[in-house]
Every structure is written in structure tokens, then in C-alpha cells.
């Protein structure tokens, strides 16, 4: 913060460093072979390898990445249904609340 401009750094300019991780010994951990990030879920690690080191991953890691992308996509679809449900409940909840006590 002592520099004289706040010149833009590119996106991803705040990478996670090893010092920012605390890995409990008794939990499964998935290491990235190309950097020092450690993940608690296999899918997170596989996605990270494909996104952060696309040029370095081997065939098996690339296959794992594709599988993780598919699994992530399915999870997101499920999440969207839940989120949409929550929005509907929120919307009609307020609609009813305003109709009953408002105005």
C-alpha cells in the first residue's frame, strides 16, 4: 500500500500461498503436484489442476479434470434448483407478509 498508484493487477493476483493453508492431520488431503496447494476434496484438486496448470497436467490428470468438470456441472444444476426454490420462498414469503401486515 505504500506505492504511489493502485495500478491494476490482473485477475488472480492474490494467489493462495502455502502459509495460508492449515491442513488438519486427520483429514483426507489432496495435493496438487505442480504447486503447494492442498485440497480437502478430490474434485477441488482436479479442477484446480486443470484450471491453474493446463499446460502441465498429464493424461490421467486431464481425464480427472474432465470428470471433475462434469461432476461440478451436475452439482451446480442441483444447487440452482435449491437456490431457485429459496428465491421463490423468499419472494412469496415477503409478498404474503406485506399483504397481511403492510399498508
Amino acid at each position: 500500500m505504500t506505492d504511489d498508484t493502485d495500478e491494476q493487477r490482473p485477475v488472480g493476483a492474490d494467489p493462495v500461498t502455502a502459509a495460508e493453508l492449515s491442513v488438519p492431520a486427520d483429514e483426507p488431503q489432496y495435493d496438487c503436484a505442480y504447486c503447494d496447494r492442498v485440497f480437502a476434496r478430490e474434485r477441488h484438486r482436479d479442477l484446480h489442476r486443470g484450471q491453474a496448470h493446463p499446460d502441465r497436467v498429464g493424461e490421467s490428470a486431464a481425464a480427472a479434470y474432465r470428470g471433475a468438470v462434469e461432476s461440478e456441472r451436475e452439482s451446480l444444476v442441483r444447487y440452482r434448483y435449491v437456490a431457485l426454490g429459496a428465491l421463490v420462498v423468499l419472494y412469496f414469503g415477503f409478498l404474503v407478509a406485506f399483504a397481511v401486515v403492510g399498508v
Partner: protein
Amino acid sequence: MARLGRGVAVAALVAGAATPAGVGRVLAHSGGLRGAAPESLSVPVWLFLATGGGVIGASFLLASFVTDRAFVDRLDAWRGPRLPLGRLANAAGRLFGVAALAVALVSGLLAGSVTPLAPERNAATLIVWVGWWGVVVASTYLVGDTWRTVDPFRTVASVVPTLDRDYPASLGAWPAAVGVLGLVFLEVVTPMADDPQLLATVVAGYGVVAVAGWVVFGPAWFGTADPLARLAAAYGRIAPLTRTADGWRLRLPGTGATETAWVDGRDQAAFVVAVVYATTYDGFVGTGLWETVASSVVGWGVPPLGAYLALLAGGFGVFYGGLALSGRLARRTAATFLTPTALVRRFTPPLLAIAAGYHLAHTLGTTLTLLPTTLAVAVSPLSPPAAVPTLVVPGWFGAVGITSVLGGHLLAVWIAHTIAYDTFPDRLQAVRSQYGVTVVMVAYTMVALWIVTTPGGAPPFV
């Protein structure tokens, strides 16, 4: 502002401001939240608060539907044309800042003898509360960090030699955080808003500290420790214009806050929380709840100043504690090995958008009303016109307050979304990492909305 009574509408402010006495009251407690809500609510308070919180929750859900990484990155990385700003404009800005400081100091210190004592006719109160707090500070998040150029303390300091000692890393941004809280404390417990002489003394004292900081530590003082320079730089991250080596550059509002690397520890996070909390504190001391609490605490023999100080520290602790808890929660919900501190530090910058929303909600009406007054008085501080001009702000303007509070929160939700995508490889993990910070934002909003709608008065015992 506190003295205007309950749930002050901007419309009511304007009505009050039309008379000279009203202007003084408008100037009082310019730092708080009161004044941002509509005059009367047609729905129960709990529903109003729940709706405010619900809007934040709903916007978090809506933002989470945007799952296109490339789109999120593109918005974040978008840069418009460069706007070269000549040396002449810079010099003009510096000169303007120093001239305004000089006029404010002279007319403040000589108030009662040479210049008028009444705050609404004295250039010191008008320049500080309307010119600086209303216009310059608002411009730091609406335009860009203008204060870096206008800052008269920096300009004065730059002609003084410096020892250029190493700024102690362990101090970090703590002086800035304590400074922001200290200034709002002074504003609440002293008649600084009404008393030009006291105000000018505080400004002069601040200037002495700033120049002394420069003499010892050089540019590091303004970059790290000086509260007002840090406030403007932090707000500047929300702004659509950013300073680059060769002039200003356009970007989307808020995208400066997605670069989280500058919040490199608890000190910087505490500074941001201090900025958010300062307005809440100033609003809370005017509520009936605080009057009740303060009355009983003072009844037990605690000095009033002690009670105010305890509230300042305790409330800040609650705000910061909530954020720290959200970091712990994020570690669990996102299934990540990032430490809570690392998570807190990444999710702190969005709060700046919230603080900017509060600031605009609070100051815009007053600033517009008193801007003509300020200009008229600032050009002839020794003998201001007998009838000071004011701008009559239309009644619908009250809606701007609520809109900017909510707008700040919506921007904060989007900034947090971008940061989460930047940090986590899994998009569902990114969404889940924001649960904690979203709860914190909902809580901050509801507190802020409660303050603006609750019956308020002058802070008791001070």
C-alpha cells in the same frame, strides 16, 4: 443531525435547512446514518428490516446463478480508456486543497471575533462537513481517489524534509483503524460539528500529526497509517476511475475491491471494519436504546465518556467478531484448508461498498442542500452574505438514501462473488464459501436500517 429527532427524512432536513438554525443542526453529526430513511414507514419495523436483509440474501442467490467463470473474469478485468490528467490539473487540485484548508483554519480559529460563530455561516464547518466530508469523500468512491491529489496535509508535508525511517511492519494499518474510530468518537462526544473553533483546532491537530508522520516515515505514512488518506484510498477501490502510472483509467465500479492482496492481515481487515462501523456508531448513539443503556450505565457511576468509549470498542469488537466468525464458517462450508484469517482477509474488501453506500445515503441530501451555502461563504469567509443560499432538494430525494444503502450492499455481494471465484477452483465451493460473509452483510444491513428508522435524538450526556 442527531438533533433533528426521529427518523429524519431528507425532506425534513431540507425543510430544516431553509432556516439558518436548521443548517447548523444539519451539520451536526454529519458522520452518521440517520437521515437516510423515509420519514414514516407504512409497514412494521421488523418487516422493513427483514425486507432489507431479504434483498441482500436474494441478491446473493441471484449472483450465484452467474456461474460463467469467463464472464465474471471479463467484468472484473474490463478496463476503459486512459484519461491522461495533466500536471496542471494535479497542481490545481493541490492548490485548491491547500487554499480550502487555509480558509477553514483561519475562519475556524477566528470564529466569534473576525468570522461568524454560527456554524452555518462559518467557512470552517462548511468546508469540512460539506466540502470535504460531503463532496471530496463522496468523490473518492463515485469518481476515484481524488483526495490523494487534494489532500492539503500531503501537499504541505511534501515540501518538508523527511527522515524516511522504515515504517514498522508490526504497526501496519492499526494507526489508520484507530484513527478512524478516534475521529468518529471525537465527532460524537464533542460539539465539533457545531463549533468552528474546536473543529479548526482538531483539523490543525490532525495536520500536525500527519506532517510529523511524514517527517519520520515519509510516503509510507500516507500509504499505510494516515486515517483519511487510507479512507480515501480504500473508497477509491470502489470507484470507476483508477490511478495508473500514466493517468486515470476507467473500470467497472467495485472491481478495484476484488484485488484482495492489499488486505494482507488483520490490521487491514480491522481498518475496513472500522470504516463500516464508524457510521453505525455515530447513528447508534442517537437511538433511544443507547439513551436507556447509557442512563443506567452512568447511573452506576461510570463516567459518560467511559460509556461512549466502551460502546466504541465493544461495538467494533462485535462487528469484527462477526466477520472473524464468518471466516471460520467459510472454512467449513467451503470445505477448504484456507485458514479463517486468509478467508476473512479476502472477504473484507466488499464491505467497503457497503460503507460507501451508507456514506452516500447519509450525506448526499445535506451536501446538495448546503453546497451553494458553502460556495458563498467560502469565497467571502470574513463577511458572508446575510441570507445564505441553499438548494431545495425535492421530496422524492429521500428514496436516494435507501437506494444507495441497498446499492452498496448489492455491489458488495457481487464483489464477494468475484473474489470467491478467484479463490476457489470449484464454483459450488465458491458459492458455499460466501454463506458466512453474506450473513454478516445481512446483519450489517439490518442494523443500519434499524438505526435509520428508530426514533433518534441527540447523543445523551455529551
